[in-house]
Structures are given as structure tokens and as C-alpha cells.
């Protein structure tokens, strides 16, 4: 490092900084929005970038499941009893993994097949991702919306509205969620049953989404409330109010744009949390039922087989772990990028 200050002789230019004209220099400093700065920080976080791509891959797999089915050549529900031995266990090694089509199903099975049914595990995973992420993303978005509205209203209205929403938040948090959801979902399903007592798979999914939305908004509400309380006193809100802006305008046009960073982080961390919760319910055999593929239920069904067919448990378990881990890592990296002061 050159001793520029005390010598005063050398030029002030540091090695590596180009002698830019002043105007441009200023523009470069001013021109970066907070979003761009955050994106720059994010890109430097290698773990964050990798986890983002893995998360995106999971999302694409979930969305493009029918396309994958076409290319792969077999559906998730095709039964292949001809791939099983007399004990209903898959023929071949490692739960029937085969990359050749030279077998009774005339199809490859890159992750093997299920015991008892002979269904292709890879396609079960692909459609299972669709179930998990479909439920998790929808429920996270709904609970986010509820939370944002609750938080905004509580903080902005204050007074008894604030007290009530606060109490209600505490009240909802006191519910033992897993146990309650687990007990409530079958009951809610009985309401949705048709004349023959059947509940359509779609209704079951809706029930789960509703339960996770109803119990998922409290954290967001508290966060938004806290943020708004600190933002509310800022000058620009005062200015908007003085200019005669209505409550709705101030809430949604002035305050909300300043909350996008914490909201984005909440959303990205809410998805893996919901995936975990949904899998846990499925593991307890509550939730989506056959023939809709589901990772948690796969683990549940593997319990009967795991002493002899470990792959059947390992594959959905590892998939679940990878999905949740990549979303968690991505969410963490996002938070670090958006709020450089946070300590993780």
C-alpha cells in the first residue's frame, strides 16, 4: 500500500481503482438500488448460489413432472408386480435399481421400485415433490398474506385492535400445532366428504393447505408489526399522511415496499418449514392419501420394510433432507444478503 497521505507526492490513485471522471463515479455509487446491492452480496455467497440452484431444480421438477414422466417412460402409479419376488421385494440389487430396459417392465428404474407394488420410486419422488412443494408454496403464500395483513393492521391501527391481534397471535401460538393439526385434519375431512363418505384427493390437499395457512402466519405478523412500528415514525410516512394520503395508501404503497426484504426471507424459510410439517403429518398417516405420491408417506410405508429394504426408506428421506436443506441454506443466504448486519 503506497504511503499517499504523508508523502502527498504520489497520486491519490490506489492500485486497481481507475481514474474515473467524477460524474460517472458518483453515478456508479448512487445508481445501485438496495436490491442490486443485495444481489451483489448474494452472488458472492457460493453456498447460497448453489443452494438456490438446487432449490430451483426441485421447483422445476415439481412443475415439469408430467414432462419428466413422458421422457422417463413410466408413470408414478404403474404397478409392476412382475418386478417383485415372492416376498413382494424388488428383484435385483439395491431395491431394484436398473439402468437397462431389459426387464419385465421394459423401463429403466434409476432409483429402484417399491416393495409390494413395484411402482417406480424415481417417479414417486418426482410427483411427491409436486405434492410437497405445491402444498408448501401455496400455504406459505397464504399464511404470508394473512401475516402481513395482521401485522400491518395491528401496528398501524394500534389501540385495542393491536392488543386483540397480539393476544390472538399468542393464542394461536399456544396450540400444540402438530397434535392439533393431526387431530383436526381427519375431522375437517369428514366435513368435506361426499355422499358416499369419500374425500377427493383435491379436498384433502386443500385441507392441509388451510391448516398450514391458519397456523403459519403468526411469525410473519409479529415481524411485520415490529417493522411497521419502527417505520411508522419515519418522515416520509409523516409526509404522506400530511399530504392527505389515506390509510390504505400509506399501508400498501408506502409501508409495504419497505418490508419486502424481511417478507422475502420469511417466505423462503417458510417453504421448507411447511415441507417438513407436511411430511411429518404424512408420516403419521394423516394428509394426502394414495394414489397421490407423498414423501412423508413413503417414509411411513418404508417402516415396515426398512430392515430388509433400506433403500426404500433412504431415498425419500434423503430427498426430503436435501430439499429442506437447500431451501434453508438459500433462505439464510438471502437474509444475509438483504441484511448484512445479521449474525445468522
Amino acid at each position, binding site marked *: 500500500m503506497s504511503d499517499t497521505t504523508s508523502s502527498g507526492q504520489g497520486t491519490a490513485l490506489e492500485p486497481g481503482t481507475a481514474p474515473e471522471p467524477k460524474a460517472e463515479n458518483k453515478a456508479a455509487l448512487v445508481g445501485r438500488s438496495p436490491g442490486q446491492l443485495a444481489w451483489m452480496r448474494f452472488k458472492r455467497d457460493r453456498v447460497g448460489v448453489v443452494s438456490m440452484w438446487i432449490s430451483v431444480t426441485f421447483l422445476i421438477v415439481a412443475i415439469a413432472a408430467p414432462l419428466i414422466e413422458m421422457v422417463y417412460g413410466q408413470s408414478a402409479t404403474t404397478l409392476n408386480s412382475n418386478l417383485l419376488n415372492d416376498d413382494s421385494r424388488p428383484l435385483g440389487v439395491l431395491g431394484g435399481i436398473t439402468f437397462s430396459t431389459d426387464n419385465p417392465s421394459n423401463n429403466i428404474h434409476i432409483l429402484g421400485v417399491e416393495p409390494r407394488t413395484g411402482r417406480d420410486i424415481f417417479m414417486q419422488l418426482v410427483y411427491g415433490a409436486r405434492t410437497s412443494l405445491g402444498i408448501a408454496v401455496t400455504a406459505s403464500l397464504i399464511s404470508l398474506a394473512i401475516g402481513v395483513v395482521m401485522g400491518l393492521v395491528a401496528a398501524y391501527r394500534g389501540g385495542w385492535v393491536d392488543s386483540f391481534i397480539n393476544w390472538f397471535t399468542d393464542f394461536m401460538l399456544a396450540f400444540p400445532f402438530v*397434535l392439533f393439526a393431526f387431530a383436526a385434519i381427519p375431522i375437517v375431512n*369428514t366435513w368435506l366428504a361426499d355422499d358416499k363418505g369419500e374425500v377427493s384427493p383435491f379436498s384433502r390437499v386443500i385441507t392441509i393447505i388451510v391448516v398450514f395457512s391458519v397456523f403459519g402466519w403468526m411469525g410473519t405478523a409479529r415481524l411485520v408489526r415490529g417493522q411497521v412500528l419502527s417505520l411508522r415514525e419515519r418522515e416520509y410516512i409523516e409526509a404522506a399522511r400530511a399530504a392527505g394520503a389515506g390509510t390504505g395508501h400509506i399501508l400498501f404503497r408506502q409501508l409495504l415496499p419497505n418490508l419486502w426484504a424481511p417478507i422475502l426471507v420469511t417466505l423462503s424459510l417458510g417453504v421448507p418449514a411447511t415441507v417438513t410439517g407436511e411430511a411429518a403429518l404424512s408420516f403419521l398417516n394423516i394428509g394426502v392419501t394414495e394414489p397421490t405420491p407423498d414423501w412423508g408417506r413413503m417414509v411411513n410405508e418404508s417402516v415396515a420394510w426398512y430392515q430388509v429394504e433400506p433403500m426404500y426408506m433412504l431415498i425419500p428421506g434423503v430427498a*426430503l433432507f436435501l430439499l429442506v436443506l437447500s431451501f434453508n441454506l438459500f433462505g439464510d443466504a438471502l437474509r444475509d444478503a438483504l441484511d448484512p448486519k445479521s449474525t445468522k
Partner: protein
Amino acid sequence: MLRYLIKRSLIAVITLLMISITTFWLFFAGSANPAAQMCGAKACDAAKIERINKSLGLKDPIHEQYGRFMSGIFTGREIGEGADAIKCPAPCLGVSFRTSEPVLDIIERGLPVSASIAVGSAVISVLLGVSLGIASALKRGGWLDKFSIGFALTGASLQIFFLGLLLQMVLVYQLKIWDRPRYVPPSEDFLGWLSGMSLPWVTLGVLSAATYARFARAEMLEILSEDFVRTARAKGLTPRAVNIKHALRASLSSIVTIFGLQLGGLLGGAAITETTFDMPGIGKLAVKAVGDDNLPIVMATVLLAAFFVVLFNVIVDAMYAVIDPRVKLS
């Protein structure tokens, strides 16, 4: 201080009451025919079902049923009529639709199992998690810190049912180096209790430790950047005094909060843990009861779990007042 606690307890009681109303309404108003459960395998005729419904008051207005349920908790009650009546002493949480046994007796059988899991895993998770989190905050950027961050992230992303099954598969069934999880009362066979509980303890303990580690680290890092820690260093105190007497002391209240929330919530998560390890605790009881439509048991377990959440919230508040002198004023 006392007034503060009384106020907190009062809010807790109201919250519990509201939860019981919500739960009762949801379960008993919406449910399918519970009377069919009483008949068991041999299907009853319509007349018998009618009689059961009438004797249990299952067709009465919901608020009357709720009133009976609540008064039963405080005074006990007789369920059913005439010769079929079942004595259910206070605190009565109803009787099982299946076996007509008072629910409380059934729960009492499961409680030691669930409590064993909760206490053992809580000890492991707090000791491991908090010390790991604090150590990694103090040596920020070092190898221990990197390990701790990785551990916290992995733990937060692993499902207890997957890790539990995996460990059982590898350690118990493949390598045969660990005891199969089972419950024996510690009074009968203490060592058997220890070895039977060890796998659930370690699994749940290590997973919850990840939460503590992550939290303790973040909290400690935040406290270490506080002005009063700088003041302590400016006084010329040793790093040990600065870290323990000043920083750790200040982060204690947040750590206690997480501990209370975790412990209070353990019973709620027991359904998953106990299914994973096939332990006959309250969680497993609830899972079975839901499968059987055995509403009184479901209701009781949900209420019990909510009770623990609320109870630990009050305990945390009380701890706050002990730890933080500022609380006494408000």
C-alpha cells in the same frame, strides 16, 4: 412482580379456556358417529346406538356437553346412566369411547414415557446446543464455528422421523451395537431404562441441540457487539469475566425463552417422536386415538399439550423477572 405474574397466569388461563372451547367445538360438533366406537367389532343396531348417544348426552347441544366436560374436570362426574354408569373422579377428562376407562388413567400410563423422552433429550440438547453455540460465537470464524453452523443447518433440515429410523436401521438392526428403543420404568430397572431411552434421547437431543446452537450463537454474537460488553472490556476485565459475567448473563434471558418454548412444545411433537421409536407415550396414544376416532382421548391429549405450552410460557415470564431487573417495573 407478583402482580405481573398473576396477570400473566390469568391470561394463560383464558387462553387455555379458549383453546378448550375451540377444540371441543371442532371435535364434538363436527365428528362422525362416536357411538359406533362404543360397540367395537360387533356392530350395534340403531336402538343401541340411540341408547348410547342418549346416555352420553352426545346429541345434547354442544354448550351443554362442554359444560359437563368442564365441570367434570373440577368435580368429577358419572358418565352414562343407571347400571352402565362409569364413575369418573375429578379431574375427569371423560372416558374412552373404546374401553370406557377414564381418560386420565390412560394418560397417566403414557405420561412417564413422554416425560422420560422430554427430560432426557432436553438435558442433552441444552448442554450440547448452548455450549456449542456460545463457544462458536466466542471463536467466530474458527473451525468450531464452522462446524457449529454446519451442525445447526443440518439439524434444522433433518426430520426426526427420518433420522430416528435411519439410526435404528443402522445401529440397532444392521450393526446391532445399540439397544432397541423401549420403555421400562426406571424404578424397576434403571439401567434398562437408560439403555432403552438412549436412542430417542440422542436423536431428539441432537436435533434440538441444532436449534439451540443456532440460536445461542446468534444471540451471543449480538450481545458481544453490545455497548456494555465494550464497556466491560474497557474496564480492563479479563476475557473470561467479559464473556461469562457480562455477555453470557445478558444472553441468558433469550436462551431461557427458547428453552421454555421448546420444552413446552415437546409434548405436541411427541406424536412423531413416539411413532418413530414406537414408544407407548402420550403422543403414540394420540395417534392411536385419532385412528380410532376416540375423541375423549384426542381432546385430552390436545388440551394437555396446550396446557404445557401455556405453562412454560408463564414459567418463562417468571424466569424473565428473575433474570432481568427491568421486568419488575412493568
